[in-house]
Protein backbone atom coordinates (compact mmCIF):
# COMPACT_ATOMS: atom_id res chain seq x y z
CA UNK A 1 0.00 0.00 0.00
CA UNK A 2 1.38 3.36 -1.00
CA UNK A 3 2.23 5.67 1.89
CA UNK A 4 0.38 8.97 1.68
CA UNK A 5 1.55 12.32 2.97
CA UNK A 6 -0.63 14.36 5.36
CA UNK A 7 -1.21 16.87 2.57
CA UNK A 8 -2.53 14.16 0.28
CA UNK A 9 -4.83 12.90 3.02
CA UNK A 10 -6.21 16.40 3.43
CA UNK A 11 -6.65 17.41 -0.19
CA UNK A 12 -7.63 14.08 -1.70
CA UNK A 13 -11.27 14.42 -0.65
CA UNK A 14 -11.54 18.08 -1.60
CA UNK A 15 -11.32 17.63 -5.35
CA UNK A 16 -9.52 14.63 -6.83
CA UNK A 17 -11.68 12.15 -4.92
CA UNK A 18 -14.56 14.49 -4.17
CA UNK A 19 -17.22 12.41 -2.38
CA UNK A 20 -20.16 13.66 -4.44
CA UNK A 21 -18.66 14.61 -7.80
CA UNK A 22 -16.19 11.74 -8.18
CA UNK A 23 -17.11 8.97 -5.75
CA UNK A 24 -20.86 9.61 -6.13
CA UNK A 25 -21.42 9.02 -2.44
CA UNK A 26 -23.95 10.82 -0.28
CA UNK A 27 -26.03 11.73 -3.33
CA UNK A 28 -29.37 11.35 -1.57
CA UNK A 29 -29.02 14.33 0.81
CA UNK A 30 -26.98 16.20 -1.80
CA UNK A 31 -29.85 16.10 -4.27
CA UNK A 32 -32.67 16.42 -1.76
CA UNK A 33 -31.76 19.60 0.06
CA UNK A 34 -29.57 21.46 -2.43
CA UNK A 35 -32.51 23.54 -3.68
CA UNK A 36 -31.20 26.75 -2.11
CA UNK A 37 -27.72 27.97 -1.20
CA UNK A 38 -28.64 28.42 2.48
CA UNK A 39 -29.92 24.85 2.76
CA UNK A 40 -26.84 23.53 0.98
CA UNK A 41 -24.54 25.35 3.38
CA UNK A 42 -26.45 24.12 6.44
CA UNK A 43 -26.48 20.54 5.18
CA UNK A 44 -22.80 20.77 4.23
CA UNK A 45 -21.79 22.09 7.63
CA UNK A 46 -23.88 19.53 9.51
CA UNK A 47 -22.34 16.70 7.48
CA UNK A 48 -18.87 18.19 7.95
CA UNK A 49 -19.36 18.26 11.71
CA UNK A 50 -20.65 14.69 11.86
CA UNK A 51 -17.87 13.41 9.61
CA UNK A 52 -15.07 15.06 11.60
CA UNK A 53 -16.53 14.04 14.97
CA UNK A 54 -17.08 10.44 13.91
CA UNK A 55 -13.67 10.05 12.27
CA UNK A 56 -12.00 11.46 15.36
CA UNK A 57 -13.78 9.08 17.73
CA UNK A 58 -13.52 6.03 15.49
CA UNK A 59 -9.81 6.59 15.04
CA UNK A 60 -9.29 7.20 18.76
CA UNK A 61 -11.13 4.08 19.86
CA UNK A 62 -10.26 1.77 16.98
CA UNK A 63 -8.26 -0.51 19.28
CA UNK A 64 -11.23 -1.07 21.57
CA UNK A 65 -13.83 -1.76 18.90
CA UNK A 66 -14.06 -5.49 18.16
CA UNK A 67 -14.12 -6.30 14.46
CA UNK A 68 -17.51 -8.07 14.71
CA UNK A 69 -19.41 -5.03 15.97
CA UNK A 70 -17.44 -2.30 14.25
CA UNK A 71 -20.20 -1.22 11.86
CA UNK A 72 -22.78 -1.01 14.65
CA UNK A 73 -20.36 1.00 16.74
CA UNK A 74 -19.59 3.38 13.86
CA UNK A 75 -23.29 3.89 13.23
CA UNK A 76 -23.86 4.51 16.93
CA UNK A 77 -21.11 7.13 16.97
CA UNK A 78 -22.39 8.74 13.76
CA UNK A 79 -25.98 8.74 15.02
CA UNK A 80 -24.92 10.48 18.22
CA UNK A 81 -23.22 13.26 16.32
CA UNK A 82 -26.18 13.58 13.97
CA UNK A 83 -28.57 13.96 16.90
CA UNK A 84 -26.30 16.60 18.42
CA UNK A 85 -26.24 18.44 15.07
CA UNK A 86 -30.01 18.07 14.71
CA UNK A 87 -30.75 19.57 18.14
CA UNK A 88 -28.18 22.32 17.72
CA UNK A 89 -29.55 23.37 14.34
CA UNK A 90 -33.09 23.37 15.69
CA UNK A 91 -32.06 25.60 18.58
CA UNK A 92 -29.80 27.96 16.62
CA UNK A 93 -31.33 28.21 13.13
CA UNK A 94 -34.90 26.87 13.44
CA UNK A 95 -35.95 28.16 10.01
CA UNK A 96 -33.21 26.22 8.22
CA UNK A 97 -33.91 23.19 10.40
CA UNK A 98 -37.54 23.26 9.29
CA UNK A 99 -36.46 23.34 5.63
CA UNK A 100 -34.03 20.45 5.95
CA UNK A 101 -36.57 18.36 7.82
CA UNK A 102 -35.86 14.64 7.99
CA UNK A 103 -32.70 14.94 5.91
CA UNK A 104 -30.65 15.93 8.94
CA UNK A 105 -31.52 12.68 10.69
CA UNK A 106 -30.76 10.87 7.44
CA UNK A 107 -27.11 11.94 7.65
CA UNK A 108 -26.81 8.82 9.81
CA UNK A 109 -27.13 6.62 6.74
CA UNK A 110 -24.97 8.80 4.51
CA UNK A 111 -22.67 6.20 3.00
CA UNK A 112 -19.95 8.80 2.51
CA UNK A 113 -19.51 9.10 6.29
CA UNK A 114 -19.65 5.38 7.04
CA UNK A 115 -17.32 4.83 4.09
CA UNK A 116 -14.65 7.11 5.53
CA UNK A 117 -14.85 5.30 8.90
CA UNK A 118 -14.51 1.84 7.39
CA UNK A 119 -11.96 2.73 4.73
CA UNK A 120 -9.80 5.24 6.55
CA UNK A 121 -10.45 6.32 10.14
CA UNK A 122 -10.53 2.77 11.51
CA UNK A 123 -7.03 2.07 10.14
CA UNK A 124 -5.17 5.35 10.53
CA UNK A 125 -3.81 7.50 13.35
CA UNK A 126 -6.06 10.19 14.78
CA UNK A 127 -4.34 13.10 13.04
CA UNK A 128 -4.58 11.54 9.58
CA UNK A 129 -8.18 10.50 10.13
CA UNK A 130 -9.07 14.07 11.04
CA UNK A 131 -7.25 15.47 8.00
CA UNK A 132 -9.09 13.02 5.76
CA UNK A 133 -12.43 13.92 7.36
CA UNK A 134 -11.80 17.65 6.97
CA UNK A 135 -10.84 17.19 3.32
CA UNK A 136 -13.83 15.00 2.52
CA UNK A 137 -16.15 17.33 4.44
CA UNK A 138 -14.88 20.37 2.56
CA UNK A 139 -15.29 18.44 -0.69
CA UNK A 140 -18.90 17.72 0.24
CA UNK A 141 -19.53 21.39 1.06
CA UNK A 142 -18.03 22.45 -2.28
CA UNK A 143 -20.24 20.02 -4.17
CA UNK A 144 -23.31 21.16 -2.20
CA UNK A 145 -22.50 24.79 -2.96
CA UNK A 146 -22.16 24.07 -6.68
CA UNK A 147 -25.50 22.27 -6.75
CA UNK A 148 -27.23 24.79 -4.50
CA UNK A 149 -26.01 27.84 -6.42
CA UNK A 150 -27.10 26.52 -9.80
CA UNK A 151 -30.49 25.43 -8.50
CA UNK A 152 -31.26 28.59 -6.58
CA UNK A 153 -30.05 30.95 -9.31
CA UNK A 154 -32.20 29.30 -11.98
CA UNK A 155 -35.03 28.12 -9.76
CA UNK A 156 -35.64 31.35 -7.89
CA UNK A 157 -33.47 33.91 -9.66
CA UNK A 158 -31.65 34.61 -6.38
CA UNK A 159 -28.38 33.80 -4.64
CA UNK A 160 -28.70 33.45 -0.86
CA UNK A 161 -32.00 35.28 -1.20
CA UNK A 162 -30.52 38.25 -3.08
CA UNK A 163 -32.19 38.84 -6.43
CA UNK A 164 -29.86 38.45 -9.40
CA UNK A 165 -31.96 38.75 -12.53
CA UNK A 166 -34.38 41.40 -11.30
CA UNK A 167 -38.13 41.19 -10.80
CA UNK A 168 -38.97 40.22 -14.39
CA UNK A 169 -37.19 36.87 -14.18
CA UNK A 170 -39.55 33.94 -14.49
CA UNK A 171 -38.10 31.25 -12.20
CA UNK A 172 -37.57 27.75 -13.56
CA UNK A 173 -39.60 26.06 -10.88
CA UNK A 174 -38.35 22.64 -11.97
CA UNK A 175 -34.86 23.52 -10.72
CA UNK A 176 -35.95 23.66 -7.08
CA UNK A 177 -38.06 20.51 -7.46
CA UNK A 178 -36.49 17.04 -7.28
CA UNK A 179 -35.93 16.77 -11.09
CA UNK A 180 -33.82 19.92 -10.90
CA UNK A 181 -31.42 18.12 -8.59
CA UNK A 182 -30.93 15.28 -11.05
CA UNK A 183 -30.59 17.64 -14.00
CA UNK A 184 -28.05 19.79 -12.19
CA UNK A 185 -25.87 16.92 -11.03
CA UNK A 186 -26.09 15.37 -14.49
CA UNK A 187 -24.86 18.50 -16.26
CA UNK A 188 -22.30 19.16 -13.55
CA UNK A 189 -20.79 15.68 -13.95
CA UNK A 190 -20.90 16.02 -17.72
CA UNK A 191 -18.99 19.30 -17.58
CA UNK A 192 -16.45 18.05 -15.04
CA UNK A 193 -15.74 14.84 -16.91
CA UNK A 194 -15.46 16.70 -20.21
CA UNK A 195 -12.92 19.10 -18.72
CA UNK A 196 -10.97 16.24 -17.18
CA UNK A 197 -10.88 14.31 -20.43
CA UNK A 198 -9.63 17.30 -22.37
CA UNK A 199 -6.90 17.96 -19.82
CA UNK A 200 -5.54 14.45 -19.54
CA UNK A 201 -3.51 13.11 -22.44
CA UNK A 202 -5.17 10.03 -23.84
CA UNK A 203 -3.31 6.90 -22.75
CA UNK A 204 -2.17 4.91 -25.77
CA UNK A 205 -3.07 1.53 -24.34
CA UNK A 206 -5.46 1.30 -21.47
CA UNK A 207 -4.41 -1.19 -18.91
CA UNK A 208 -7.42 -3.25 -18.08
CA UNK A 209 -7.36 -5.56 -15.12
CA UNK A 210 -6.73 -9.06 -16.41
CA UNK A 211 -10.24 -10.42 -15.99
CA UNK A 212 -11.79 -7.54 -17.89
CA UNK A 213 -9.45 -7.90 -20.87
CA UNK A 214 -10.17 -11.59 -21.22
CA UNK A 215 -13.86 -11.06 -21.05
CA UNK A 216 -13.66 -8.38 -23.71
CA UNK A 217 -11.73 -10.64 -26.06
CA UNK A 218 -14.16 -13.47 -25.52
Amino acid at each position, binding site marked *: *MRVTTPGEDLFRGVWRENPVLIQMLGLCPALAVS*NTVANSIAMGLATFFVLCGSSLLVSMFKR*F*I*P*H*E*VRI*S*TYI*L*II*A*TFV*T*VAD*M*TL*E*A*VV*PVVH*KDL*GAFISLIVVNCMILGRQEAFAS*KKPVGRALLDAVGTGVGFIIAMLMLGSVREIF*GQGTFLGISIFGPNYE*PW*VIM*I*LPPGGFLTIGFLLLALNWIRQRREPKPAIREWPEGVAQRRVA
Partner: protein
Amino acid sequence: MTGTGNVSESASGAGGAPPPPERHEVPAWRLLSTLGTAGMLAGLLLVFVFRATQPAILAYKAEVLRQAVQQVLKAPDRYDTLYVYDGSLVRQPPPDLVAAQLEQLYLGYTSENERIGFAIAAGKAGFQDIVRIIFGYDASTRQVLGMMVLESKETPGLGDKIEKDQTFVSQFDGAIAPLLGVKIGKGTGDPSEIDMITGATISSRTVINIINEALERLGPLIEAYGEEGGGR
Protein backbone atom coordinates in the same frame (compact mmCIF):
# COMPACT_ATOMS: atom_id res chain seq x y z
CA MET B 1 -7.93 -4.69 -4.02
CA THR B 2 -8.29 -3.69 -0.40
CA GLY B 3 -5.52 -2.41 1.79
CA THR B 4 -5.74 -5.29 4.21
CA GLY B 5 -5.09 -7.78 1.43
CA ASN B 6 -1.89 -6.02 0.44
CA VAL B 7 -0.65 -5.76 3.98
CA SER B 8 -1.13 -9.43 4.74
CA GLU B 9 0.52 -10.42 1.48
CA SER B 10 3.62 -8.40 2.16
CA ALA B 11 3.78 -9.72 5.72
CA SER B 12 3.73 -13.34 4.64
CA GLY B 13 6.11 -12.67 1.78
CA ALA B 14 8.75 -11.18 4.08
CA GLY B 15 9.89 -14.66 5.07
CA GLY B 16 11.63 -14.01 8.37
CA ALA B 17 8.83 -11.83 9.80
CA PRO B 18 6.40 -13.66 12.11
CA PRO B 19 3.02 -14.38 10.51
CA PRO B 20 0.22 -12.03 11.56
CA PRO B 21 -1.63 -13.29 14.65
CA GLU B 22 -4.75 -15.29 13.89
CA ARG B 23 -7.92 -13.35 14.54
CA HIS B 24 -9.23 -15.16 17.57
CA GLU B 25 -12.88 -15.30 18.47
CA VAL B 26 -13.92 -12.32 20.57
CA PRO B 27 -16.11 -13.38 23.51
CA ALA B 28 -19.71 -12.24 23.40
CA TRP B 29 -19.45 -10.27 26.61
CA ARG B 30 -16.82 -8.04 25.01
CA LEU B 31 -19.07 -7.30 22.06
CA LEU B 32 -21.93 -6.54 24.40
CA SER B 33 -19.87 -4.41 26.72
CA THR B 34 -18.39 -2.41 23.84
CA LEU B 35 -21.78 -1.62 22.38
CA GLY B 36 -23.27 -1.08 25.82
CA THR B 37 -20.57 1.34 26.89
CA ALA B 38 -20.71 3.21 23.60
CA GLY B 39 -24.49 3.43 23.83
CA MET B 40 -24.37 4.65 27.40
CA LEU B 41 -21.81 7.34 26.64
CA ALA B 42 -23.82 8.40 23.58
CA GLY B 43 -26.97 8.61 25.68
CA LEU B 44 -25.23 10.63 28.34
CA LEU B 45 -23.89 13.10 25.78
CA LEU B 46 -27.34 13.46 24.22
CA VAL B 47 -28.89 14.22 27.61
CA PHE B 48 -26.54 17.16 28.02
CA VAL B 49 -27.12 18.44 24.49
CA PHE B 50 -30.87 18.04 24.93
CA ARG B 51 -30.87 20.01 28.16
CA ALA B 52 -28.76 22.71 26.59
CA THR B 53 -30.82 23.14 23.43
CA GLN B 54 -34.36 22.43 24.64
CA PRO B 55 -35.11 25.88 26.16
CA ALA B 56 -34.23 27.61 22.89
CA ILE B 57 -36.30 25.14 20.85
CA LEU B 58 -39.36 25.47 23.08
CA ALA B 59 -39.04 29.24 23.20
CA TYR B 60 -38.95 29.38 19.41
CA LYS B 61 -42.02 27.15 19.09
CA ALA B 62 -43.94 29.23 21.62
CA GLU B 63 -42.95 32.41 19.79
CA VAL B 64 -44.09 30.99 16.44
CA LEU B 65 -47.43 30.03 17.97
CA ARG B 66 -47.83 33.42 19.65
CA GLN B 67 -47.18 35.22 16.38
CA ALA B 68 -49.58 32.93 14.55
CA VAL B 69 -52.36 33.61 17.07
CA GLN B 70 -51.60 37.33 16.83
CA GLN B 71 -51.96 37.19 13.08
CA VAL B 72 -55.11 35.10 12.70
CA LEU B 73 -57.00 36.87 15.49
CA LYS B 74 -55.94 40.30 14.17
CA ALA B 75 -53.75 41.30 17.08
CA PRO B 76 -55.76 40.49 20.22
CA ASP B 77 -54.89 42.29 23.42
CA ARG B 78 -54.46 38.97 25.19
CA TYR B 79 -55.53 35.39 24.72
CA ASP B 80 -56.48 32.43 26.90
CA THR B 81 -55.53 28.87 26.18
CA LEU B 82 -58.45 26.43 26.28
CA TYR B 83 -58.16 22.67 26.33
CA VAL B 84 -60.42 20.16 24.65
CA TYR B 85 -61.21 17.66 27.37
CA ASP B 86 -64.03 15.18 27.66
CA GLY B 87 -66.10 16.75 24.89
CA SER B 88 -65.94 20.31 26.10
CA LEU B 89 -63.59 23.25 26.39
CA VAL B 90 -61.96 23.83 29.75
CA ARG B 91 -59.72 26.62 30.94
CA GLN B 92 -57.68 24.43 33.26
CA PRO B 93 -56.52 21.01 32.11
CA PRO B 94 -57.28 18.22 34.59
CA PRO B 95 -54.31 17.86 36.93
CA ASP B 96 -53.59 14.25 36.04
CA LEU B 97 -52.98 15.05 32.36
CA VAL B 98 -50.10 16.83 30.71
CA ALA B 99 -51.50 19.95 29.08
CA ALA B 100 -49.46 19.49 25.92
CA GLN B 101 -51.24 16.21 25.15
CA LEU B 102 -54.63 17.88 24.84
CA GLU B 103 -55.81 19.76 21.81
CA GLN B 104 -55.60 23.46 22.48
CA LEU B 105 -57.63 26.43 21.31
CA TYR B 106 -56.81 30.06 21.88
CA LEU B 107 -59.50 32.57 22.76
CA GLY B 108 -58.52 36.16 22.01
CA TYR B 109 -59.89 39.29 23.66
CA THR B 110 -59.74 42.98 22.82
CA SER B 111 -58.47 45.50 25.33
CA GLU B 112 -62.16 46.10 26.31
CA ASN B 113 -62.34 42.44 27.30
CA GLU B 114 -64.59 41.59 24.38
CA ARG B 115 -64.15 38.33 22.58
CA ILE B 116 -62.54 38.47 19.19
CA GLY B 117 -62.69 34.79 18.40
CA PHE B 118 -61.00 31.43 18.67
CA ALA B 119 -57.71 30.50 17.08
CA ILE B 120 -57.77 26.84 16.07
CA ALA B 121 -54.79 24.82 14.87
CA ALA B 122 -55.57 21.76 12.78
CA GLY B 123 -53.99 19.56 10.14
CA LYS B 124 -54.76 17.12 7.35
CA ALA B 125 -52.88 15.30 4.62
CA GLY B 126 -52.28 17.57 1.65
CA PHE B 127 -50.59 16.80 -1.66
CA GLN B 128 -47.23 15.82 -0.17
CA ASP B 129 -47.51 15.62 3.58
CA ILE B 130 -49.60 16.83 6.49
CA VAL B 131 -50.55 20.49 6.11
CA ARG B 132 -51.03 22.22 9.45
CA ILE B 133 -52.74 25.57 9.63
CA ILE B 134 -54.08 27.88 12.28
CA PHE B 135 -57.16 30.00 11.70
CA GLY B 136 -59.22 32.50 13.61
CA TYR B 137 -62.96 31.99 13.95
CA ASP B 138 -65.68 34.21 15.33
CA ALA B 139 -68.52 31.94 16.43
CA SER B 140 -71.14 34.71 16.68
CA THR B 141 -70.86 35.72 13.01
CA ARG B 142 -69.53 32.36 11.71
CA GLN B 143 -66.68 34.32 10.16
CA VAL B 144 -63.19 33.04 9.56
CA LEU B 145 -60.91 35.83 10.75
CA GLY B 146 -57.68 34.79 9.10
CA MET B 147 -55.63 31.77 8.09
CA MET B 148 -51.97 31.01 8.36
CA VAL B 149 -50.06 27.86 7.35
CA LEU B 150 -47.94 26.48 10.19
CA GLU B 151 -46.39 23.48 8.45
CA SER B 152 -46.46 22.36 4.85
CA LYS B 153 -44.23 20.51 2.43
CA GLU B 154 -46.40 21.29 -0.58
CA THR B 155 -44.74 21.55 -3.98
CA PRO B 156 -42.53 24.64 -4.23
CA GLY B 157 -43.92 27.05 -6.79
CA LEU B 158 -47.37 25.43 -6.91
CA GLY B 159 -48.79 24.02 -3.71
CA ASP B 160 -46.76 26.28 -1.48
CA LYS B 161 -48.85 29.19 -2.77
CA ILE B 162 -51.31 28.27 -0.01
CA GLU B 163 -48.90 30.06 2.31
CA LYS B 164 -47.00 32.40 -0.03
CA ASP B 165 -49.78 33.72 -2.30
CA GLN B 166 -51.30 36.64 -0.41
CA THR B 167 -54.37 36.79 -2.69
CA PHE B 168 -55.24 33.25 -1.62
CA VAL B 169 -54.44 33.74 2.06
CA SER B 170 -56.28 37.06 2.40
CA GLN B 171 -59.51 35.55 1.01
CA PHE B 172 -60.01 33.79 4.32
CA ASP B 173 -60.33 37.07 6.18
CA GLY B 174 -64.06 37.46 6.70
CA ALA B 175 -65.15 34.36 4.77
CA ILE B 176 -68.28 32.73 6.20
CA ALA B 177 -68.01 29.11 7.30
CA PRO B 178 -68.59 26.49 6.00
CA LEU B 179 -66.24 27.42 3.19
CA LEU B 180 -66.69 26.40 -0.42
CA GLY B 181 -63.79 26.14 -2.84
CA VAL B 182 -64.50 27.40 -6.37
CA LYS B 183 -62.42 27.78 -9.51
CA ILE B 184 -61.22 31.29 -10.22
CA GLY B 185 -63.88 33.19 -12.13
CA LYS B 186 -66.62 30.64 -11.37
CA GLY B 187 -67.60 32.23 -8.06
CA THR B 188 -70.99 33.86 -7.48
CA GLY B 189 -69.73 36.38 -4.95
CA ASP B 190 -71.04 34.40 -1.99
CA PRO B 191 -68.98 35.26 1.14
CA SER B 192 -68.30 31.61 1.84
CA GLU B 193 -66.53 31.07 -1.49
CA ILE B 194 -62.76 30.75 -1.71
CA ASP B 195 -61.01 30.97 -5.10
CA MET B 196 -58.75 27.94 -5.40
CA ILE B 197 -55.23 28.24 -6.81
CA THR B 198 -54.80 27.12 -10.41
CA GLY B 199 -52.36 24.20 -10.44
CA ALA B 200 -52.73 23.62 -6.72
CA THR B 201 -56.30 22.41 -6.43
CA ILE B 202 -55.51 19.67 -3.94
CA SER B 203 -53.48 21.94 -1.68
CA SER B 204 -56.13 24.68 -1.77
CA ARG B 205 -58.93 22.21 -1.10
CA THR B 206 -56.94 20.75 1.80
CA VAL B 207 -56.83 24.13 3.53
CA ILE B 208 -60.56 24.63 3.01
CA ASN B 209 -61.34 21.11 4.25
CA ILE B 210 -59.16 21.51 7.33
CA ILE B 211 -61.17 24.57 8.35
CA ASN B 212 -64.54 22.99 7.59
CA GLU B 213 -63.73 19.74 9.37
CA ALA B 214 -62.23 21.47 12.40
CA LEU B 215 -65.33 23.63 12.74
CA GLU B 216 -67.63 20.65 12.29
CA ARG B 217 -65.76 18.91 15.10
CA LEU B 218 -65.13 21.83 17.42
CA GLY B 219 -68.05 24.09 16.48
CA PRO B 220 -70.48 22.57 19.01
CA LEU B 221 -67.82 22.79 21.73
CA ILE B 222 -67.23 26.43 20.91
CA GLU B 223 -70.98 27.16 20.96
CA ALA B 224 -71.33 25.42 24.32
CA TYR B 225 -68.40 27.31 25.77
CA GLY B 226 -69.86 30.54 24.41
CA GLU B 227 -73.01 30.09 26.45
CA GLU B 228 -71.39 29.15 29.70
CA GLY B 229 -68.51 31.59 29.43
CA GLY B 230 -70.74 34.35 28.04
CA GLY B 231 -70.28 36.57 31.07
CA ARG B 232 -66.62 37.06 30.32
